[in-house]
């Protein structure tokens, strides 16, 4: 496998990096949507995250990456590892960041009848798909706005429920599929349906850097990486390691981070001012702010955390008003300055 571009070597794009880290700290935030121009490093950042994440412990030979320390979840029927509470062999593996490649078919995404076994042995057995592989990790869909509608619907449904239900070819299987869905795309090639937008926890809009220095730096690092990927990765290894340690600490600290009533109230006011539908916006905003506070080592969520996360947590939940010339980002920022004076 060719080395991936190191996360800490990515120039700028702070909002995207923060959103990805926050989702890595608290997986319940529910997915990140990255929209921006072509060639701005969307996929680079997501793939870089893969090699950055700390390892996790799984039941050996379980295709669903089941957690050996968690007795509450039920793995799928017919899991070849056949683990019970008593006998479990644990193994440490990298957190899966599964790429949903272009042209993937539904049978490979959800899993299907194992053709080989069916044809040669006449056995009916389930071959887990990408959703199984992504359990407890990330599922990355590039060009999410080009993906066929029925696949997008399916992904969002599974990522919301955390379980994949397969009913096809006489198979009836359900298995855990809790993953953070990361979608990226170029808005000039078509928007996502509003009801799908809302399902993503965070949404990030990235733009190309406007100052020449950082543009030159991007190209310089890119050329350096292409010339000798291994040396470049080695050079950034320590910095990536520091980020990794910080993620681990933040995950541990997060449950003890306090959110005061006044902070909750200002979040509610913000959502009210923006007229976001439903409670999802508030919930995501509070979780994201808490994860950010944990990342920064704070003991309590303060205004700066809310201000940082509000655009990503709310901008895609605004009711579209096509005649309003201002973009959704501007509207969120306007509301922030109103609520927090």
């Amino acid at each position, binding site marked *: 496998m060719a080395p991936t571009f190191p996360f800490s070597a990515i120039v700028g794009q702070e909002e995207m990096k923060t959103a990805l880290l926050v989702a890595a700290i608290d997986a319940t935030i529910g997915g990140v949507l990255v929209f921006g121009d072509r060639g701005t490093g969307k996929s680079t950042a997501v793939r870089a995250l893969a090699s950055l994440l700390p390892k996790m412990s799984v039941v050996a030979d379980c295709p669903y990456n089941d957690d050996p320390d968690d007795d509450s979840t039920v793995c799928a029927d017919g899991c070849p590892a056949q683990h019970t509470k008593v006998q479990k062999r644990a193994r440490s593996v990298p957190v899966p960041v599964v790429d*949903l490649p272009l*042209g993937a078919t539904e049978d490979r995404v959800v899993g299907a009848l194992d053709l080989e076994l069916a044809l040669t042995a006449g056995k009916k057995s389930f071959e887990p798909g990408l959703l199984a592989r992504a359990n407890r990790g990330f599922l990355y869909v590039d060009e999410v706005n080009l993906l066929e509608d029925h696949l997008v619907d399916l992904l969002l449904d599974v990522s919301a429920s955390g379980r994949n239900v397969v009913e096809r070819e006489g198979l009836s299987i359900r298995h855990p599929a809790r993953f953070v869905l990361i979608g990226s795309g170029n808005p*000039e*090639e078509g928007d996502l*349906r509003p009801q799908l937008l809302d399902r993503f926890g965070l949404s990030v809009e990235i733009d190309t850097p406007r100052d020449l220095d950082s543009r030159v730096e991007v190209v310089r690092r890119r050329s350096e990486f292409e010339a000798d990927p291994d040396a470049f990765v080695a050079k950034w290894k320590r910095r990536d390691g520091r980020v990794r340690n910080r993620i681990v600490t933040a995950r541990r600290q997060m449950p003890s981070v306090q959110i005061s009533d006044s902070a909750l109230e200002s979040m509610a006011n913000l959502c009210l001012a923006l007229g976001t539908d439903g409670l999802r916006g508030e919930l995501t905003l509070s979780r994201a702010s808490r994860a950010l506070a944990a990342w920064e080592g704070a003991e309590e969520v303060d205004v700066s955390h809310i201000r940082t996360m509000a655009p990503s947590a709310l901008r895609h939940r605004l009711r*579209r008003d096509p*005649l309003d010339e201002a973009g959704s980002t501007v509207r969120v920022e306007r509301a922030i300055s109103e609520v927090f004076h």
Partner: protein
Amino acid sequence: MDLEQADGAWDDALLGAAIFASDPSGLGGVCVRSQPGPIRDFWFAQVENLIGQPSEFRRIPCAVTEDRLLGGLDLAATLSAGRPIGETGILAESDGGILLLAMAERLPASAAACIGEALERGIVSVQRDGIDHQSEVRFGVIAFDEGIDEDDHVAAALSDRLALHLRLPEASARELPGSPYSAKTVARAAAEITGVVCDEDVVAALCGAAFALGIRSFRPSAAVVRAARTSAALNGRSRVEEEDAGNAARLVLALRATMLPQPAPEEQNEPEPQEDTGDNDRQGPGDDQARGPMMDVVLDASTAAIPPGLLERLKQAELGGRKSAKSAGSGSHGAAPRRGRPAGVKRGSPGAGKRLNVIETLRAAAPWQPLRRQTDTAPTGRLKITQDDLRISRLKHQGKATTIFVVDASGSSAMHRLAEAKGAVELLLADCYVRRDQVALVAFRNQGAEIALPPTRSLVRAKRCLAALPGGGGTPLAAGIDAAAQLADQVVRRDETPVIVLLTDGRANIAADGSADRGRANIDAKSSARRIRAVGYRSLLIDTSPRPQPVGRELAAEMDATYLPLPFADSKVLNDAIRSVAHDPSASMV
């Protein structure tokens, strides 16, 4: 194109060929804008000579499907072996070679994205038909872009990853010189690229040039540096010099420019200037708005504007002989869709346009094999498939609608009407998310018509384009209708259904040839309208004059359009009217 310019373009094309040949996979490829013909063949022969091994070229038809590109289940092998056997796709097979795409602008977006992804990552990832496979690939792409219209080029998912963008000169009677480089030079350059140094200040200059030209993606910025190093290697240098940087900027950046650089750095091929020059006496208030400091607006407007020369040529082709109504209309409504997006499978027999879905058929048959082997007398080792197992692919081909607004942007009251139309486009667009319909906008004023907004369902793009739409000047109604008809033809070619919505008072005063002759203008407008009726595009004419005149109704009759006098149409009324026409089952079908 005068001779001197043609010479320059040809020299650049030869240089591009040599640079590409030196580093096909590193540069991703070359996108060549040109019509097929002897010049293009000659150019390609140069590339073949420089690379040397003709067997490495692989031509891909523009109708290529994802399953061929990526691979899948090999049916014949699977059936004879009795177990699933994969088939390598074109991309994996092309490792180390060169893909040749003719009519690359016709490549489906999904196929273009597949090729682009493989170029970018150097990996082909297959998750299809029960196959889970990754293979490393390195290849170069030559994409021949034969698109004429501004909005009809190679999909960005692919073209962004092709470093070199060339335009071959138009047909020339003269003998063109062959490449000044030899296969030997190219081979030597290929070996030396990695050793070429590119100084920081050169990198900064190249990035600055890309930025000043309004190129937002980083890939061209990285590619231009690589191309500069290749140019240096070709010229036997170990350090990038000014000449190399200039070469690379011309070959990588020039055709991508979306705006004119303010201080004009090392840029030679200037992009087409905006169309509305020289109409300073009768400008409406909209022009000042459009020329505002909003960089994004100007940037997008210049890409959307059709260069005047191109518009002229399209008109010539139009008068020379239009496609028959039959061919233009064919394919927009088939009985059973033979293409479209896959929408699952169902039980049934293939034939009559329905395609057998082999994988699902095998899956359906598989569990029964042991049982059938026991009861059946046929020789063993073969799969036994009965009628019942057959599965056919269901393809969803929604008759996607593209609403083309044709807006009279002339005269003093244009701003009002323009504002209404803009509002309607945006409302309709908001309504289109669920249906995935598209809208486009053609504006006509002064001497001609321009496509202000190519078909899109992107709100972002629509807003940028609409904000930049100017108003004022004469009323070239015929040109507007013609432009809409051409756009509608394009839409039909993409298997979608156009709906033309014309907003005008019907009073033309500029004839088709651009002369200010009211009588001729009206005759031309009617003859253009008749062509719309002949092709059978569904249309709606909204009369925007303060008091409806017979001339509007007559024009609607010529077009066979629904006539709607709407002196004070507001966006909401307009939107409702359009929806009722576009989705009226009793209206004539295209």
